[in-house]
């Protein structure tokens, strides 16, 4: 039994100008203690996927189909109140994109940390115990407990990010989703935060979903990788499989665009921009930008096939017709 299993998840935004299929038939699974990296360009539906896992898709979006199984309980069938009290933060917590803005400017760090516990502990934590736990976690993420009385505007970007990480651990979740946790930080702090993640993962035996546009970050921390393009997963496998043997032209393009210090290879990039999700191209959604595009790519969506054990790709180059 996987800890988290997502099957054919569809999350659509029902806007006046049409249905935006931000997440379309996405499937993956996560085992206990595993780290899954989800990569893709901005606007490919990564954040929507994250919000879907908490059943908190902002309106007018909603989950239109598929299953989210957390220890075999289907989230999409649970009542909102059940999801709120059993899943959010207690089972799945989240580190938000742009930690700068995910702390309430008018409460101090202590209040915000303790609050995460207040609605989830059934009385085993009084305020003082909660504060102690908050202090401990702050120390775990490398901050002093003086931070408890500080307000967000007094903290640096890296400090805020650490506070947000501490906050995500308050209710002892089994899964932590980190949505672009390092994007807004400068390189040195990025490295510190990544090391912190590695340390926490080891100490707490956490399962994590790491969402980023930056493949080098994923390479650093992930066991498994899913590459998303225009609302769909195009390639999925272990880190070794995906990084050493990229099969999808999009994955190949992404990997080539990472600068490498020792190599003499030229940096390449993928020409064009991702399609709008309201009106994606027919067939394979990548075909307008794909150097190997064939006739069939324009007509039919490629199925997801298993090329080697655990390594999946959705591309006509690799499926027999």
């Amino acid at each position: 039994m996987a800890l988290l299993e997502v099957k054919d998840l569809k999350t659509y935004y029902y806007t006046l100008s049409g249905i935006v299929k931000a997440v379309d038939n996405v499937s993956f699974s996560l085992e206990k203690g595993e780290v899954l990296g989800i990569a893709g360009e901005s606007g490919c539906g990564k954040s929507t996927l994250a919000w879907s896992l908490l059943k908190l898709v902002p309106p007018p979006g909603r989950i239109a189909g598929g299953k989210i199984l957390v220890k075999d309980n289907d989230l999409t069938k649970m009542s909102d109140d059940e999801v709120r009290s059993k899943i959010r933060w207690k089972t799945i917590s989240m580190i938000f994109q742009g930690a700068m803005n995910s702390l309430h400017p008018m409460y101090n760090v202590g209040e915000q940390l303790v609050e995460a516990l207040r609605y989830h502990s059934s009385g085993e934590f009084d305020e003082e115990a909660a504060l102690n736990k908050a202090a401990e976690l702050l120390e775990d993420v490398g901050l002093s407990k003086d931070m408890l009385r500080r307000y967000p505007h007094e903290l640096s970007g890296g400090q805020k990010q650490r506070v947000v990480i501490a906050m995500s651990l308050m209710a002892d979740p089994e899964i932590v989703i980190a949505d672009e946790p390092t994007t807004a930080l400068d390189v040195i702090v990025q490295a510190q935060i990544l090391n912190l993640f590695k340390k926490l993962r080891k100490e707490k035996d956490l399962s994590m979903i790491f969402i980023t546009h930056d493949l080098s970050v994923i390479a650093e921390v992930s066991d498994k990788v899913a590459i998303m393009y225009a609302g769909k997963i195009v390639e999925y496998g272990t880190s070794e499989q995906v990084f050493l043997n990229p099969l999808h032209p999009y994955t190949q393009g992404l990997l080539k665009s990472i600068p490498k210090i020792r190599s003499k290879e030229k940096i390449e990039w993928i020409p064009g921009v991702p399609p709008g999700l309201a009106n994606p191209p027919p067939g394979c959604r990548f075909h307008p930008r794909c150097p190997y595009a064939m006739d069939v790519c324009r007509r039919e969506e490629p199925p997801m096939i298993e090329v080697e054990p655990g390594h999946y790709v959705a591309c006509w180059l690799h499926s027999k017709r």
Partner: protein
Amino acid sequence: MGLGTVLTRRAIALTFALIVVVLLTVLIIGATGYDATIWKAIINEQVRAYQATLVQKQATAAQVQQLVAQYRNKLIHLYGLDKPWYVRMEPLLINTLTFNLGLSNSHDVADVAGVPYPVPVGTAIMLCLPRTIIMITIAQLICAVVALYIGPYIAYKRGTLFDRAIVSYAALTNAIPVWWLGMIFIYFFGFIMGWFPTDYRAVVYYINHFMDDPVTSTQYILWYASLPIITIVIAFLGSWLYSVRAMVLRVVREDYINAARAKGLPESVVVSKHVLRAASPPVVTSVILSLAGSLGGYIITESIFDWPGMGTLYWVAITSADVPTILGLTYMFTLIYILARFTLEILYIYLDPRVRYS
């Protein structure tokens, strides 16, 4: 810069503004010759009366002429008309700023206050202020409470029929002048239906003699105040709802509100502890400023209802060219507003940590 320094600086700036506003009023009254015209009219009146008594005493024409001229010069000197206007204005400015508001020259002002002529300006203001509070401040308070209660709810229901209805109501009532609504309500609910009074000046009696029979007085005051209050609430509630909704909407999309939800907080807690807390500075600002503004009375609306409050007092002071009352009231209006602004500065320190530590 410490907090004390910031507040002191604001206090000095606001006091400076207060003095300049009173100075401006004095300038308008003095430099345009407004007060001189009024004094001349008063002098002519007194001289005519004096002349009449002389004629009664059967003085000769030459004597009358001489005595009248003397008397006129005496009055001109007394009222300072032989001096340039700025010399006359100096004591006026100082007296006003030191709350030495003087005596009203107008019978109409005494009439609005509901006491015998002549009435000290301070007394007239103290008599009219509670009446304005009964009508306008209470109406604004009702609006504020209702808006704070259901405004966030509307923001949450954004896009629904209910939300659209409220927004349309707000746009509509925001467009209708409140005094015009008053005119129509007085005619329809007062004259045609007979549900409410049509003459409101009589409320003076029940307010000024409140202690004689508090129960009956309260009943009558409520009876008189109800239609004006209803009118103001109908006219302003829409704008209140719309602005609270807008302030909440600015906040609900912030990342930290979504974060609070992700933490698994119940929606009611998200609204009360996170959304409202974040929206509190602008909400508190608009509550405090509109309550403070209401204390000055709505001159036109009070006039339509012939309601003897601060607004009517000011208008009567204007029509009867009563300089002490005009000055006194302008000073009060400004003072109340400035005190409200300063209160806000202090409240912000409690409301927003970003202000507290900057």
